[in-house]
Every structure is written in C-alpha cells, then in structure tokens.
C-alpha cells in the first residue's frame, strides 16, 4: 500500500482523483492546493507517490516537482497534464517526473499508473 499525495488547485480534481483512488489499495495521506503547500506537505508526509497538477497559482507543478526531487531524488511524481501542455510535460520529464497522465483520464488509467509505481 502506497501513501499518496494529491496536488491540484482545483478542489474538484482533488476530490475526483481521491474518489478514483478509493477503489484501490492505496491511501491518500495528503492533499495540496498549490506547489508551495505541496512541497511543505511532501516534507511532512513523505508520500510514496505524488500526483501533480501543472498549472497552479502560487507555485506551479514544475517548480514543485523540482523542489520535491531536490528533497528526494527518488521521489515518484506523476504529472497531471492537459492537452496542449507538451512543453511543460517535456520539462517535467527532464526534471525527474516518473510519468504523466493526461486530463481527462479514466479511473483505470490513474489506478494503473499508481499501481505501476507503487
């Protein structure tokens, strides 16, 4: 069972992902609504896997990803991207993201992704 942190500025997306993950054997230990909080919570909860939205106020997902990787180079971060964010996804991959998922995604998609990393 993996500890998961969901990072998204939209509460709706956090709820959606959380609901989807309820059906698998992982536990959502933390949520964050921007990158800055995500980095803090990462240190606090040390989750196994992070789902990271890209476009967020305060600190975006790319910056947060970099800071998290700086804290733990082995951190498993899945970027949650939308169509049209290719360049950012590319940068995320270069910065150490373990993969990405494209909105809109289905339950099977995100569960499969997390199971693979867990």
């Amino acid at each position, binding site marked *: 069972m993996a500890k998961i942190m969901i990072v998204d*500025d*939209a*509460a*709706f*997306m956090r*709820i*959606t992902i959380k*609901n989807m993950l309820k059906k698998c054997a992982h536990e959502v230990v933390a949520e964050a*609504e*921007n990158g*800055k909080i995500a980095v803090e919570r990462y240190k606090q909860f040390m989750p196994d896997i992070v789902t990271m939205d890209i*476009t*967020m*106020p*305060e*600190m*975006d997902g*790319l*910056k947060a990803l970099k800071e998290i990787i700086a804290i733990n180079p082995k951190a498993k971060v*899945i970027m949650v*991207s*939308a*169509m*049209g964010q*290719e*360049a*950012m*996804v*590319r*940068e995320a*991959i*270069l*910065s150490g*993201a*373990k*993969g*990405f*998922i*494209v*909105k*809109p*995604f289905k339950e099977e*998609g995100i569960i*499969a*992704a997390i199971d*693979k*990393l867990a």
Partner: protein
Amino acid sequence: MLDAYIYETQQLLEALENTLLAGENGQKLDADQIGEVFRIMHTIKGASAMMEFEELSILSHKLEDMFTLIREGKDPGAAWPALFDVMFSSVSFFNAEMAKLLDKQTPNGDSLPLRERVEVLIRQIEGEETTPEAPEAPEGAGAEEEAVDAAAEEAEMNTTEAEAEDAQAEPAAPAADSAIYKATVHFEKDCQMENLRAFGIVQVLQKMNVRLSYLPADLSASSAAEDIVNNGFILYIQTSESPAEIKAVLDETLFVKAVTLSPVGEDSEDIPIEMRTQPEAKGQGADVKPAAAPAVETPEVKASAPETPPAPEAEAASNGNGDAAAAQVNNGMTSFETVAKQNFISVNVNKLDSLLNIVGEIVTAQSMVVNNADFGDRPHESFDMAAQQLHSLINELQDIVMSIRMIPMSTLFQKMRRLVRDMSRRFGKQIQLEVIGEDTEVDKNVIDYLSDPLLHIIRNSVDHGVESPERRRELGKPENGRIILEAKMTGSDVVVTVTDDGAGLNKDKILQKAREKGLLTKPESELTDREIYNLIFLPGFSTKEQVTEYSGRGVGMDVVRKNIAYIGGAVSVDSTPGQGTVHTIRIPLTLTIVDGMKFSVGKMNFIVPTVNVLSAIKPSPEDVFKDPEGNEMMMILGKVYPLMRLSRFFNIHDTVTEIADGMIMHLSSDERDFCIFFDHLDGEYQVVVKKLPSYLEKCSSNLQGIGGCAILGDGSINLIVDVNGLAAEC
C-alpha cells in the same frame, strides 16, 4: 461529485468575472490578470473534460488557447474590447450551463457561436504581431529578459546533466560484450501524448549504460504521437546491460501496454546507420538520434545536446513556458485571493444551523459540569485548570461556528457590477458603480434574500434614475453617472444603500398615481415628501410607463419590500429632485455577535446592545417625576426623558420598586431617547444573538421589545432588548 464540479466552477467563474471587471476599466488585463484568466480557463477545461461536458470543455479550451497567446506576449491591442465582450458572454454561457446542471438538466447549450467569436479574435491577435515570429523567440519583446533567465536556468540544469552524461560517456563506448536490441513499445490506448511518453523512456535509458537510436526519430514532430500509436515506439539499444534490465525499465514506464525486446545481429539490415559506426567523440550527439540538433549556441548547452530536447521550436517553446511559469510564481502574491476563494467547500446551511445549536448546548453542558454541586467546596485545582482549557476551546469553537455562516457582501455586489455594466452599455449610459463596504459580512440567508431586491433597485436606478449622457450634459452634470452601493453595520442591523445621482423621483407623478389607484390613506397636504416617495413600495403601485428588458418585468417595488420584509428588514427611499435617489435597506442580522450590557429585573436576565446605551446611572429619587398623565419621567443633565419600568412592561414580579434601589439606563433608539429602570447591572458581555424559539410566538406573551435571546458562557438564558421596539411602546 457533480456538486463539487458545479460549485467550484461557479467559484472560478465568479473570480473570472471579478478579474474581467477589474480589467475592463483600463480596457486591458495586466500580466497577473492574464495569468489568472488562463489558469481559470485551464481548470474549467480540465474539470469539464473529466465530467464529459464537451461543449463546456471545448469552449474553455478555445479560451485557454486565446489566453495562451496573450500570455506569451501577444497584445490583443485593438481587440481588447471585443475580447472582454466575448469573455463576459462566455461567463454568462458557463453560468447558464451551471444553472442547468443545478436544475438537474443536461447542459445542452451550444458554444459554437462563442467559439467562432473566439476564433476570430485568435486570428486577430495572431495578426497583431507585425514581425513574423522567430522560432527561437516566441515571447514578446518585454518578456525577453525573463526568457534569457529561463534559458540560463535551463542551461544550468542541463550542465549538471551533461556532467553526468560525461561521466557515463566513457563506459557508454561499446564494450566488447555489448549487444544491440530492438525494442518495440506500445502504449495504452488513449493515454495521449505518446511522443512525450517515448521521450520519457529515452531520458531514462540515456541515464543507463546504453547507446540509442529510435523511430520516429523526431519525437517533437507533430506526427510523432500518431506514428507511435500506429507502429509502436521502436528503439535500437546497444548496451552491455542485461536485456532484462532494459525490459524492466520499459515495463515500468507508465501507460506502457506491451514491450517486445529482442537481440539483433551486429550487421543486421535492421540496425540504423548511426549504430553501426562508432561514435567519433563523446558529446557530439551521434550516440543519440540524429535529429537532436543543438538548440542554443552557448557552449554549456551544446555540451548537453544529447540530453536536450530535439527540435529548436520545442526548445523555444519550453523556454516560453518556463518564462510563463516564472511569471506565475511571481503572480503568486496577487492571486492569493483567488486561491483562498477556491478553497471553499459547500455545506448545507441546515448542518450549520444544527452545528450552532449544538455548540450552544455544549456551552450549557460545560457550565453544568464545571459548576456541578457534587464538587462541593473541596479544592480541585487540576480540574479547574482542565475546565479553563475546555472553556477557552469552546469559546474558540463558538467563534468559528459563528464565522462560518457569515459571508461577505462581495459576492452579491459582484453581480451588481456586472448588471450595471451590461445595462449601461445597453442603454447607452455611462455609469460608474462605486462599491463601499463589500467586506461587510452577513448571514448566508440574508445574502440570498437580498439579491433580488437589490437587483431590482439597481435596475431602476440605471434605467429610470441616471439620465443619458446627453441629458446630463444639458443639465450641467458630469456625463458619467454614479451609483453608489454601500453596505455597513449599524449595531444589530446591516444597512445597504443604493444612491444614484440621477433625476430623482417625480413627486407629482407618484401622488397622481397613488390618487388614481386609491392608495392614499392620509390627506395629501399632510404627507411629507418622504412619505410620498415611499408610496412606491405599496402593493399595486408602479409608475413604469415603458417596459424595458431589464427593469420592467411586471414586478413593482412592492415585491422588493415584500422580499425584504420576509427576512425582517425594511426598505425606504428618499430623493432630491434633479440630484438623485437613495434607497435604504435595513436588515437585522439573524445571527450575529453583539456587544451588550447585561442587567437583571427580578429573576430575568436581559442584554441590551451597547450601541444603544448612552449611559447607566444610579438614580436619586428626586430625578424622577411624573407628568400630568402619571407617566414617569427622568431628568438627565437638564433634559427630561420618558422612563419605563421594565418590571411593569414585562410584568415581572419580585423586583426592585424603589427608584433608589435600582438602576437607570439611558438608551437611544431611531425614534427617540428614553430611560429604562431595572434592578441590577451585571456588566458587559459579548453575546451570540439567537432567534426566539418559534413556539414563543405562538403563546400570547408580550414579545414586543424583545429582539432575540442569547446563551451566556454560564449557560444562562438572556433576553435581548429590542430598543427600537421598546421605544415605540413608551
């Protein structure tokens, strides 16, 4: 789930509207605002797509596209006004769809007309750029500096990678035992951006002891994703690692469905050209796919070319985004407010009601425990300490529960801003809406009931109040009309005023109409101006001569009054011909914290709001005398005020009767100042006003003069004096 979607989308739309309204005055949005609009559209797009509301998702996508352009530095210039119009129309469209969803209907609106308008704008915005876009610099000139920063940052990042690459480059030279494998990777159906997933694989493999070549060679080409979907991602890997290790890496990649890995002969036809020849020198890029042309001319970056994303456009684009990302971080401070807004969740108000009640009960229970007679007189120090802590926690809880129900007027006032904007455009009037006190917090219910009346009043002000610019010029008024919307707290009331500087009400017309409709109850000569103006609130009264889209819907001002009366409020109007009209709405807070003075009459405890108290006096009998009708009067500083004995008024027994034994409080009400006589003053408290239980209204007792009740920390029930109600009785 749907609820969360609707709620959040509505919140976002509201924030969006705010931003648009803030920007429209200057006829453009600044960088922060552009970033915010972009983020909002992006979030709505994502959420709508998840919910499979296609029209909503494509429209928001289009809008996001448009703002991506603007964010990258393209200035819409002359297109701004049209852009604002499209944005406002889109907000309306989204709102309408949300309303349908709330109504349990399918959002079936057609966003095509809006999308077409956006398309036109996008073309226009793209056309604005005079110089053809150079691939290395998609940013506008102003962003160049940051772009350089971003590039530098990236270069720095790549340097470290390049070092790592250097370290690996030595062993990467084909060892004697190295073999070449061909791998074909298929991704899950519909996982999207397959080219980038492949790019990810390349990144991971390059960190290992391998040489690579792959197909499609250019992962940033527009056809790459499709190629991979159709043919799979094909890699030739030369390595001395075990094939199992390579396969594991491929298998572990997210969304990889199937991997085939097989060795190929050294001289197989299959092997791409560049694999057959030894790399000339490390870092030349030969050990990566041939398309990896160095993107930037700086030496550091060149060294890292093997790691650098292939095509120059892509490189530039990623710089652009880095720049945008940096801008976003900078925006952090200003957009904090929006973040806070998005943190709201919706809770059923009934739950809050019961929460509040329970907190009240807890306070009582706490007092019962702490002051329990079973303790006797024994000292109980540690218990007292625990009790003290409990007490402060419960106080905090009470405060929080109170504050939960209170929401600022700003949500309501926001709507009005939009209304004034839309209407003044439509009627060709120039009206500035000034908003004061939008932070004033009131109970949720109040906002709900206040909305329609306020809309109606403001419609009237825009439509009938403020004159057209031409007319205003003739009258020597400034062309820009003003409507001031103000909310403020006055003691236990919230007062909302709508003031316009328009023509004012026409007294004669009102009188004539009232006469025709037989609404006059007093001789005309006895009516004050104010009374005449307030005739407009009578049922059946309406001076509308012309029905317009906004202000004439067959509803008169009597509906306004009815709605406000429903929440226990009152509305009045005053006007100065030629100078404007003031509408005043007073609403008592159904729920509020009041600073009050506590006093007792017999066994009854009362609280009077401190705002109404002028002074409290220990009286001497000679200050009190009777008027010829036997009513008691009190002399204070040479002035005489009526005196009311609360024991008589509320019919309370066993009370102080001698003036010298009791206390006097000098109170002010809207109507007049007066004095009350009671037994004992207990001090000042902050209390939570609660409505009287409804069953009290059913029994016949006299509730005049009682505005509510409050439970104090000790669990005692106190009646809250309605000073205006009392004043009417003396």
